[in-house]
C-alpha cells in the first residue's frame, strides 16, 4: 500500500523526485534551504541536494522571480517559492512583463519553464497579507498557467507536471490543506495534466464546481446533500485555473442544468465570474436556474479573527444548492 502523506509531504516528494530525475531542477526562495521552508515543504532537500540546488535567496520577491526567469531562459528548471502568495505582487512586474511573454514575443524561440510555488488562502490564523486568494489576478495574464491542487495526491502529480511543463506555471498551495488530511500517494511518479479539471464525484442533479481548500466544504456538502436530501451533485475540482478546462464544466452543466461555484476568493473579477461567463457563452439555454456563486466578499481579506466568517462553508454551499434547485 502506498504511504499516506499530508500535502506538505506530497509536495516535498514531488520536489525530491523531480530533482533526482533532472539535475537542471533547482529550488530558490526565502528560508527554503537550511530552515527547510516556513511550512517545512522543502524538508531534507537542502541536506540532500546542497545549497547550490536549494538556494536561500536574499529577501526580494522581484529578485526571486526575475532571476528564476533568467535561469529558465538559460535552460535550468527553476522552482521558486514565494513565502506567502501575498508577497507575489512584488514580483508581478516580472511575471506579467517577462515570464508570461517571452514565448509569445519571440514566437517560441525563447521560453521560460519556471514554476512559482506559493502557499495561499485563509484558514490557518495567519497575520495580515498571509491569507489572500488572488488566483484570478494571476490567471488573467495570458501566458501564465495557474494550478491549484486540492489534496496530497493531486498536489504531487500536478507539481511534477508543472516542473516538466514548458511554460511558466504558478502553483498555488492552499495552506489550509497542508496538513488537513492524509492521502495515499504512490511512490512511483505520477504526472497530473495541467489544463484538465477532475470530476471527483458524478451526479445528475447539479454541478458543484470548486478548487483548492474550498473542496473540503464542497465535499462535505455533497455528502450531506446525498445523505440528507437525496440530492446527487456532480463535484468538479477545477485544478487548472489557467488554462481552464471549461469543456468538462460545461458538459456537466449541460446535463444537470444547474450549477453552484464555490470559491474562497472575493466575488468580483474572479474565476467564479469567468466560469459563469463561459456558461453564458455556451450552455445558457440548457441552464434551468441562475448559477449560484458562493464566494468570499469584495472586502480587504480580514484579519484572522474574522476569516472563517468570511469564507464559504458547508452551510452556505448547501443553501446555494437548495436555491439553485428551487429556482
Amino acid at each position, binding site marked *: 500500500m502506498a504511504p499516506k502523506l499530508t500535502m506538505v509531504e506530497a509536495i516535498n516528494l514531488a520536489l525530491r523526485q523531480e530533482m533526482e530525475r533532472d539535475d537542471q531542477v533547482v529550488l530558490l526562495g526565502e528560508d527554503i534551504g537550511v530552515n527547510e521552508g516556513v511550512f517545512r515543504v522543502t524538508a531534507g532537500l537542502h541536506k540532500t541536494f546542497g545549497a547550490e540546488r536549494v538556494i*536561500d535567496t*536574499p529577501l526580494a520577491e522581484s529578485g526571486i522571480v526575475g532571476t528564476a526567469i533568467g535561469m529558465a531562459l538559460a535552460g535550468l528548471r527553476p522552482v521558486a517559492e514565494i513565502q506567502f502568495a501575498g508577497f507575489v505582487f*512584488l514580483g508581478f512586474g516580472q511575471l506579467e512583463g517577462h515570464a508570461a511573454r517571452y514565448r509569445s514575443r519571440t514566437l517560441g524561440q525563447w521560453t521560460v519553464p519556471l514554476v512559482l510555488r506559493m502557499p495561499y488562502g485563509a484558514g490557518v490564523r495567519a*497575520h*495580515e497579507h498571509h491569507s489572500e486568494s488572488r488566483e484570478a489576478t494571476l490567471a488573467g495574464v495570458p501566458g501564465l498557467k495557474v494550478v491549484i491542487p486540492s489534496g496530497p495526491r493531486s498536489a504531487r502529480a500536478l507539481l511534477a507536471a508543472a516542473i516538466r511543463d514548458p511554460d511558466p506555471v504558478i502553483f498555488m498551495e492552499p495552506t489550509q490543506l497542508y496538513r488537513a488530511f492524509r492521502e495515499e500517494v504512490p511512490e512511483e511518479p505520477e504526472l497530473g495534466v495541467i489544463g484538465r479539471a477532475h470530476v471527483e464525484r458524478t451526479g445528475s442533479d447539479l454541478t458543484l464546481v470548486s478548487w483548492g481548500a474550498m473542496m473540503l466544504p464542497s465535499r462535505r456538502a455533497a455528502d450531506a446533500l446525498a445523505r440528507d436530501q437525496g440530492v446527487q451533485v456532480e463535484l468538479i475540482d477545477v485544478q487548472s485555473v489557467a488554462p481552464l478546462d471549461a469543456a468538462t464544466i460545461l458538459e456537466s452543466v449541460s446535463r444537470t442544468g444547474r450549477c453552484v461555484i464555490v470559491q474562497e476568493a472575493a466575488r468580483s473579477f474572479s474565476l467564479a465570474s469567468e466560469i459563469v461567463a463561459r456558461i453564458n457563452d455556451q450552455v445558457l439555454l440548457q441552464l434551468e436556474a441562475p448559477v449560484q456563486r458562493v464566494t468570499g466578499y469584495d*472586502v480587504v481579506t480580514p*484579519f*484572522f479573527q474574522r476569516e472563517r466568517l468570511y469564507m464559504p462553508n458547508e452551510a*452556505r454551499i448547501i443553501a446555494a444548492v437548495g436555491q439553485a434547485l428551487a429556482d
Partner: protein
Amino acid sequence: MPLKEVAKFSVSQLQVLDEHGQLDEKLDPRLSAADAVRLYEAMALGREVDQRLVRLQRQGRMGTCPTCTGHEAAVCAPALAMTERDWFVGYYREIGARLMRGDSLAQSLRYWHGYEEGNLQPQPGRTLPVTAIVGAQVLHAVGIAYAMKYRRETDSAVVTFFGDGATSQGDVHEAMNFAAVWQVPVVFICVNNQWAISQPREQQTRSETIAQKAIAYGFEGLQVDGNDPLGMYLATDRALRRAREGGGPTLIEALTYRLLMHTTADDPRRYRSDAEVERWWKRDPVPRMRRYLEGRALWGEAQQQALQERMRQQLDAAVAEAELREDWRPDLLFDHVFGAPDPELEAQRQTFLAALPAATAVDAHGA
C-alpha cells in the same frame, strides 16, 4: 586621467556606552535624568511585553507574533530623540518604541491577535501602524517626508525602521534614492539584527556594512552599536536635526541581534548556534541601560521592584482589556472598503449577515 581616483568614502561606527557600561564622555548626549529613566522604563516595558506575548501565544490567547527582545535600544532611543511632530514609520518589531509614541498596549495586543480593531490607536497622530510587507513602509516614509518639506513643517522629520533583510528589497532602494534626490527630512534606521528569519546577514548582502549602502545614494551612512541606547540616541538626534534643517536623509545601521525567535512560529535553533546567541546576550541593551542609570544614581533595586510591579499591572490590565470583545461586530469590514457605501458591498453585507449563524458555528468548531 588614465586610471584616476575620482571619489573616496568611508564609514564610521559610533558607540557611546559600551557593553561594560563604559561611557565615552566626549560623545555623551547628557540625557536629563527624566529622559534617561523614561528610556530605560520604555526598554524594560518592551522586554516585558515581549515575554508576555510569547506566553499568551503559547496559551493560545494570541496570534503568531514577532519578538523584539534585544532591539530595545535600537528602537526606543530613537523614539526618545523624536518629538510628537516627527513621524514614526516602523515595521513590526518596535513594540517598546510604539508604546512611547502613545500607542495603546491593549490595542497592540488586539492587533496581534487578529483584530482589525487593534489598529485603532487612541491618538494615531504621527505613528503609522505596523506593516508586514518587508520594506514597503520605507517608501511611505519618504512620501511623508516630502509632504513635510512641501508644507514647510520644519519642526518635523520622519524616522523609518526596517530590518537588514529589508535592504534587499527594491522598495527600500527606491526609497533611499527618492529621499536623496528630493533632499527630504527622513532618517532611515536599519535594525540590523544579523538575521532575516533564517538568512544570516552575510548571505543577505555582501557589503561589509549596511551603512555603506548610503554611498550609493550620496548621503551619509553611519554604523551604530544598536545595543547602546546612548549611541542610538545621539545618532538619531543628530540625523533628525540635520533632517529638520534641510540637510536631507541619513542612514543609521543599528548593529544589534534578535535574541529570540523570528516569530512564535519560528524555531531559531534550526539555523543558528546557541553559542552565537549566548554571545549576544552578553551585550543585552536592557541591563546595559540599567547599569548606566545606576552609575548616575538614578536607579536601584527598589525602583526596579516598583517598575516590575507597575509593568505587571499594566500588562494584566491590557490583556484583560484586549480580551474584551464588547465592540465586536462581525461585518465591520464592509464599512471600510471605501469612504462611502457601495450598493454591491451593501448587498454582500446582507448575504454575509444572513450566513452568519452557520459561519459562527463553524468558527467555534474551527478555532
